[in-house]
């Protein structure tokens, strides 16, 4: 309605100007009449278009944003995917699937709860049946002064890739270092506090306290805090074409009876043994990402280079062969890993990417009781090189071809091929940097 008034005012002004300038002869007057008629017609059209969107009311009026991500792969592998990377048998091993495979469909629901809070839930629908809660958190929206608090279940803010959902990954799988050190992604039940400095340069510091339920911690019944995260991020633009972000993270937790199956040992037990570790786990990480696009126009062409390094020190007690001799003694090890990847959008909708991964299983110092049982030095550096090309007909759909030469397992080099689709239905929220 108010816009209608603006239009009338604008036309009145327009006409008064026009009249002054043009009221010279009859032909001009005729032209003015035509203009008036057209403008009136236009007003009518526009007031009808402006009133077209009907505000929904009743139960549907406060519907949250709902999104569904459909994801699936076809994989060709030549080695048994359940065998862990050499030296990482006591770590998680995210297994690649062979043949046609429905990935996890992800159902996301989010909305403002009230002026103070926003709620987000992401449910993962397992293709074999069952639903798991990937994220379910509440975040503050009006604390001000650069503060943000999040509580519930969320992806930890450490590193760069950790907070990204699978549909936003640039490759069909996570880097090896995320797979082995974070069980793909570190999800925490807890609370996160972030503060953004009031500077022109992006400086963000954050801390989390949580349950420590996921690897490298272990779920246990106790009061208080099971894990802690500290992170800081710095970022900026360089001109209009370059932008970057760099960060450091620290993670501390404790494992209690963290059991691993099928761990190779010095006596060479067929199928390995089952070990259990209890002790402290501390991880430090560095991450950076740099992006470039001509004129800053990411729709046409861009380059994105990112890398992360994590180093974990664990010390505690290892029980060797829990099902058999079950001998316990001290066990300290430092494991690390890194990846470096580049993604190049060479024309609108088409991207290519290259990633290099490397892990270091470290040399463990094993207590005397287990010195003849537990392998302390594997003498092998797991690595992998991955190539991908993807095509996104729109921002809601993506098709990907990925080739990898996986040398993460000694004497088991594997050439892998994946074809993947990722489709988003419904609300499509903003992606993080």
């Amino acid at each position, binding site marked *: 309605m108010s816009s*209608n008034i603006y239009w009338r005012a604008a036309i009145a002004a327009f006409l008064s*100007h026009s009249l002054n300038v043009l009221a010279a002869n009859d032909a001009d007057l005729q032209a003015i009449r035509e203009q008036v008629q057209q403008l009136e017609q236009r007003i009518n059209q526009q007031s009808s278009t402006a009133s*077209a969107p009907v505000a929904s009311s009743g139960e549907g009026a406060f519907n949250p944003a709902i999104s569904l991500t459909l994801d699936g792969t076809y994989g060709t592998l030549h080695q048994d995917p359940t065998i862990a990377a050499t030296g990482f048998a006591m770590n998680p091993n995210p297994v690649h699937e062979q043949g046609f495979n429905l990935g996890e469909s992800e159902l996301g629901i989010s909305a403002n709860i009230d002026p103070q809070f926003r709620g987000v839930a992401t449910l993962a629908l397992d293709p074999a049946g069952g639903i798991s809660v990937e994220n379910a958190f509440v975040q503050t929206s009006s604390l001000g002064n*650069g503060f943000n608090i999040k509580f519930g279940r969320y992806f930890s803010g450490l590193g760069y890739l950790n907070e990204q959902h699978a549909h936003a990954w640039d490759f069909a799988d996570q880097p090896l270092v995320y797979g082995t050190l974070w069980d793909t992604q570190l999800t925490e039940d807890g609370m996160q506090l972030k*503060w953004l400095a009031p500077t*022109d340069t992006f400086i963000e510091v954050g801390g989390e306290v949580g349950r420590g339920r996921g690897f490298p911690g272990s779920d246990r019944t106790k009061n208080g805090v099971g894990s802690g995260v500290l992170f800081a991020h710095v970022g900026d633009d360089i001109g*209009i074409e370059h932008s970057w972000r760099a960060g450091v993270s620290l993670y501390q937790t404790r494992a209690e009876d963290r059991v691993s199956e099928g761990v190779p040992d010095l006596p060479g037990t067929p199928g390995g043994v089952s070990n259990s570790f209890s002790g402290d786990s501390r991880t430090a990480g560095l991450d950076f990402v740099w992006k470039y696009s001509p004129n*800053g126009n*990411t729709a046409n062409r861009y380059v994105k280079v990112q890398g992360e390094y994590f180093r974990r020190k664990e010390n505690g007690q290892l029980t060797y062969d829990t099902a058999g001799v079950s001998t316990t003694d001290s066990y300290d090890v430092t494991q690390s890993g890194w990846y470096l990847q580049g993604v190049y959008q060479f024309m609108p909708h088409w991207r290519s990417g290259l990633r290099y991964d490397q892990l270091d299983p470290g040399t463990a110092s094993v207590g005397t009781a287990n010195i003849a049982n537990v392998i302390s030095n594997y003498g092998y550096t797991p690595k992998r090189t991955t190539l991908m090309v993807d095509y996104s007909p729109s921002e809601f759909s993506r098709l990907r071809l990925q080739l990898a030469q996986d040398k993460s397992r000694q004497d088991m080099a594997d050439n892998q091929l994946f074809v993947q689709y990722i489709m988003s239905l419904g609300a499509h929220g*903003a992606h993080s940097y």
Partner: protein
Amino acid sequence: MKKIFFIFSLILIGSNAHAALNVFACEPEWAALTQQLAGDKASIYTATGPLQDPHQVQARPSLIAKARNAQLLVCTGAELEIGWMPLVLRESGNSSIQPGSPGHFEAAKFVSMLEVPTRLDRAEGDVHAAGNPHIQTDARNFLPVAEALNKRLIQLDPANTSYYQQQYAAFDKQWRASITKWEKQAAPLKNIPVIVQHRGFPYLNNWLGLKVVAELEPKPGMEPSAAYLGSVLSGLQQHPARMVLRAAYQDGRPSEWISERAHIPAVIVPFSVGGTPQSTDLFAMFEDTIQRLLAGLK
């Protein structure tokens, strides 16, 4: 430790030292309008460049940092910034620019929207529920937006009310005179059939009377295939067009392809302030748009 604290407090003081109103403008045209209305009373940061596709901006760390200190956000709205603004707002931890607060200004709320879809379906491509958001190509839209922005500036910075009133009155007068001039200059463009690369010009066409006979994107936001371009080309025999338009930020290949084969000029429209070397401010943006369209007629 003391040293760190000292540096830290310097940073804090430093950022609060300038008294000017901190404005975060989403697009260059709103930065230019704010500049016209607030002069040196505002310190303006422009979040996107004229050669960036405004649909596909990323929530870069620098944008979050700038939004943290902003007192006023001036954006198009109508979902144009939906791919990055919600995240920037959340991460900024700045309660004074959140939607619904006086520091959150969306220009599209003050103009009549065109192409409001009656059917929301992604099969139609990248459509915006609130209507086509590219409102800045019709000069007349700046009148109600300037009026509303003037009120908002006064609300946020009442100490400078008389200054803002003066600036607004001067702008309004000059802008109305310019519209009259531009409409006269653009009279030959009326009913001229054109092809557009993206459905980005309904406001311009509505204003100057250009008639769109074809679009090079099969659906908004979708890349044309060679076969689709071929069908557009053959369709031109029935509905010949005089030129093919594209915004400065768009990839030139589809328009160049049509331009070569249909023997019609490919015209680049600045689309925002700075989109072409000539479009240095709001006035120059429209001068240049009309000059380029007229040149396309020859």
